[in-house]
């Protein structure tokens, strides 16, 4: 009757996203009056740190190639062995491949993309998720004995509550895979968009790809990841993986700069859950201002370099 979180090592370590899930799992275990255990997939030199965020007991398996069936079988076996009945993932690509399978295998109720700490209501759990691309919130009730949740990034900040944990190597046998990973191509050196805390995004107002230096300077000054609107990616001004919105990547950073982007509904659908939105646009009527927290009306080619300068001054103090 415990909570089991499933987290993964990225490039040899657990990152902030994994610790968010530790804190989420810990808080959920408090709501349910039980403990939080972790299954760590992949080698991570900082695995013991999960204890600081409230994980009572951690099992680790080494690096294995991704296969949705294999992952599902390992997680189900681990949950059954531990007697865990609430299984929690971050809402990332692994969860999108595995959580649905796991729910069927364990006869569990699944809610994906959750953005609140569960509330217990008798034997059922209540959780909130965004629906209609962020235009509404649905409160779900899960009434099955076993429950699976996938949690949106940035739902909760990691909180230190304890000491480092002892991490035990999992003894669950790894089932044979029937698929073969032949290549993995990832950008290195920058935080991928779905994980980014800060995003600097620019649109057609930039006029052409040759003008992107001011965007990159602002992003590098604050350690943000760059993004763009769809027409910008379609015109090959920027690589496709930067395209955010309904058809592109959906993101949820703490801080989103929208520069020379009009704020069409399809764009907003992928970014409107950002905590703080700053819009820079020369058109005071641009729809994006309605979705913004802070706005600057004016020419981005003048404003963006001044903003980068102001941040530089601020950091020197």
């Amino acid at each position, binding site marked *: 009757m415990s909570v089991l979180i499933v987290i993964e090592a990225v490039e040899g370590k657990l990152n902030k996203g994994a610790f968010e899930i530790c804190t989420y799992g810990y808080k959920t275990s408090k709501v349910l009056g039980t403990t939080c255990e972790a299954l760590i997939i992949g080698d991570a030199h900082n695995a013991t740190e999960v204890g600081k965020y409230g994980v009572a007991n951690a099992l680790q398996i080494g690096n294995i190639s991704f296969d949705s069936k294999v992952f599902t079988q390992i997680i189900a076996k681990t949950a059954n062995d531990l007697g865990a009945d609430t299984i929690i993932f971050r809402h990332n690509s692994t969860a999108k491949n595995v959580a649905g399978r796991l729910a069927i295998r364990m006869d569990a109720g699944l809610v994906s993309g959750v953005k609140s700490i569960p509330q217990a209501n008798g034997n059922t759990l209540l959780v909130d998720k965004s629906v209609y691309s962020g235009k509404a919130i649905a409160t779900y009730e899960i009434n099955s004995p076993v429950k699976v949740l996938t949690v949106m990034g940035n739902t909760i900040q990691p909180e230190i509550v304890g000491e480092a944990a002892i991490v035990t190597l999992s003894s669950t046998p790894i089932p044979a895979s029937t698929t073969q990973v032949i290549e993995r191509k*990832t950008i290195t050196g920058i935080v991928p968009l779905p994980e980014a805390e800060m995003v600097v995004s620019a649109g057609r107002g930039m006029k052409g790809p040759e003008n992107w230096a001011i965007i990159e300077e602002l992003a590098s000054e604050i350690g943000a990841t760059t993004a763009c609107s769809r027409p910008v990616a379609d015109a090959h001004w920027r690589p496709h993986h930067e395209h955010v919105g309904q058809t592109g990547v959906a993101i949820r950073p703490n801080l989103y700069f929208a520069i020379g982007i009009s704020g069409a509904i399809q764009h907003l659908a992928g970014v409107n859950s950002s905590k703080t939105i700053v819009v820079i646009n020369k058109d005071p009527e641009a729809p994006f201002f309605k979705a913004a927290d802070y706005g600057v009306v004016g020419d981005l080619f003048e404003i963006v370099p001044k903003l980068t300068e102001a941040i530089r001054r601020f950091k020197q103090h």
Partner: protein
Amino acid sequence: MKLLVCISKTPDTTSKISFVNNGTQYNEEGISFIMNPYDEWYALVKAIEIKEKNGGTVTVINVGDASNDIVIRKALAIGADDAIRVDGKPTSAEYVAKQIAHIAKQQAYDIIFTGKETIDYNGSEVGPMVAELLDYDYFAFASDLSIDGSKKTVSREIEGGVEITTSTNPIVVSAAKGLAEQRIPNMQGIMMSKRKPLEIVNPIAVAEKVSVKIHTLPEAKKGVKLVDSNDMDELVRLLHEEAKAL
């Protein structure tokens, strides 16, 4: 190749969202419904492309009432060969997945497609559930798929990149941008769609494990705070002190 494409009906992206009956029910009044874009642009078109290249059949399946026939006919107009509608009320991903798997079990499809998510409940849940129910391999957010005999090579989106995997088993894939390009149905397709078979079948019973208790609208933004374009120090101060974002 026997190909199955799961399609759903969703409100158009630009629809205003509201709820009735104390927030329990989506207000359909004045809403125009469309085929879920990822199902239409990527999943369906990719299946048709495979059929054009490798031969085979493309069947579309939808779970819902007769008001969905219009999106099913559109899928037939774009190029699917035939359609199945399970005449049930799609109340959860598990309900939908179990209907689809129940039918697919008898048919031995080589590839089953879904969209990467629906634009209403944004779940990404039906595909992996169908895969588990049928014991197929599963690839979420596929941006490329090529076929060589029984070998399928799939690129799927992962954080900051793609992973390329091969499988010789039957597979379920959820379709994302890159997999195919939208096709607009032509007049001939529309005419033909009217004569293509649409089979209506009864649903199987599924005990629901999740249900939506209430819908609410997100808190409205407090309104934008405008900052003078000559005072970026003020914007930085606000982002630091007020928003605590820098």
